[in-house]
């Protein structure tokens, strides 16, 4: 699928990290949880770059999605892993793109099955509008308004010479879903 436009995801990430760093001064017991797959990459980097005390958590919302009855389980479900005590924690929930809010709802529901967080804050590289549920991001690098047929996809390009994840570059592509088989985005 040929992208219509590519965004400098590294610059967007830098802006997101800057906003989170600013807020960290008045937050305690902070942990970062990323939603697979794009949010997981971002969470991994945020924990390092913002010196978060807890290791990153990862969520696959497949078991909590509201469209399971229509779509079934995706071919690949990754295990959710929350390696810290959720009770009383301030959790920064990270997704690459904030759209309908349904993924956010599923992720928050799943987090509550691990315990009772003190606070959940939502971080996203891009808020593309189109919300169907009352969620708003606390940290967002860019706001866009996109028609429904367009989709934003975050990918990770790893330099062949250096396979360490830290060196991989994030790329955010805008694609037309009608031109190919639909993804679950």
């Amino acid at each position, binding site marked *: 699928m040929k992208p219509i436009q590519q965004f400098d995801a590294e610059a967007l990430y830098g802006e997101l990290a800057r906003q989170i760093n600013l807020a960290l001064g008045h937050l305690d017991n902070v942990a970062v949880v990323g939603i697979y797959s794009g949010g997981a990459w971002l969470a991994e980097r945020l924990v390092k770059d913002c010196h978060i005390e807890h290791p990153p958590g990862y969520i696959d919302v497949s078991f909590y999605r509201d469209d399971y009855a229509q779509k079934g*389980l995706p071919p*690949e*479900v990754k295990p959710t892993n929350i390696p810290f005590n959720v009770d009383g924690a301030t959790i920064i929930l990270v997704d690459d793109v904030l759209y309908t809010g349904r993924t956010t709802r599923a992720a928050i529901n799943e987090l509550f099955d691990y*315990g009772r967080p003190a606070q959940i804050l939502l971080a996203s590289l891009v808020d593309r509008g189109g919300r169907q549920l009352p969620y708003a991001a606390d940290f967002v690098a860019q706001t866009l308004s996109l028609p429904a047929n367009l989709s934003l996809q975050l990918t990770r390009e790893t330099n062949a010479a250096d396979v360490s994840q830290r060196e991989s570059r994030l790329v955010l592509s805008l694609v037309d879903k009608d031109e190919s088989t639909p993804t679950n985005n």
Partner: protein
Amino acid sequence: MHNPQLNQHGELQHLLTTEGLPKSIVNHILDTAESFVSIGNREVKKVPLMRGKSVFNLFFENSTRTRTTFEIASKRLSADVINLNIAASSTSKGETLLDTIDNLAAMHADMFVVRHAQSGVPYLIAKHLHDTKQNHVHVVNAGDGRHAHPTQGLLDMYTIRHYKKDFTQLRVAIVGDILHSRVARSDIHALTTLGVPEVRAIGPKTLLPGGLEQMGVRVFNDMDEGLKDVDVIITLRLQNERMSGALLPSAQEFFKSYGLTPERLALAKPDAIVMHPGPMNRGVEIDSAVADGPQAVILSQVTFGIAVRMAVMSILASN
């Protein structure tokens, strides 16, 4: 040939047997199960996938472990579980099996988990649901006669994959009463599908069914010879309740020739794992020292069984 387990899109409609189950579906079940394993360690051991669905456990034959793990699996998926006490139900008053099914379907059942002493009963139910156009109802075979026990077969595959990672380099020995064992049949089909190059069947001639060689299985009557260099040993329960006639002199005699003792286990690879579908007869097919030893993974099988059944049910419920 039409595979009654699959719907017209090639998706799993019922789980009746591991025979002819496409490798992609087996792997999808095992991969999905992996994500369910960790749910057992959480504060809230539940996901909302099957909220509002009703699962009917129809156990026409006794079972503790299988029925309980199906019940736990259903509950962890947030389904409502109804356990039917068949012995005290209408079938004992003369109602036919299919009338019972229609009545339960009229109560808006979404899934039947069926165990029966007669081979083929889950097929009969699946066919009836198809013929009466009740395709939204799914059937899981929880063991039918000597024929199949697919979720046990799949949880055995999950256990082997967990400990051995790669199926394509393995020697797997199935030991004991293979004649009466639906578990052995389900294991053999699944192992073959997943590409295990060598499956062995070990037991006395009277407890080995015909046709094993045609299934690609190497047959051994001598236990010591059969265990040499295997990676996985699946011991089976001696099924006294299904035996008619003099197939064996005695349980003690059986232990002497085919009981898995530490000495015999030493003939297998040093990192071989020992499995058993339960219930175990200590001192008949397995020595306590082996059953409680470091190579036994029998209790892990039980834990993995819940996750595998969750995977099967959640995949069925969405198709």
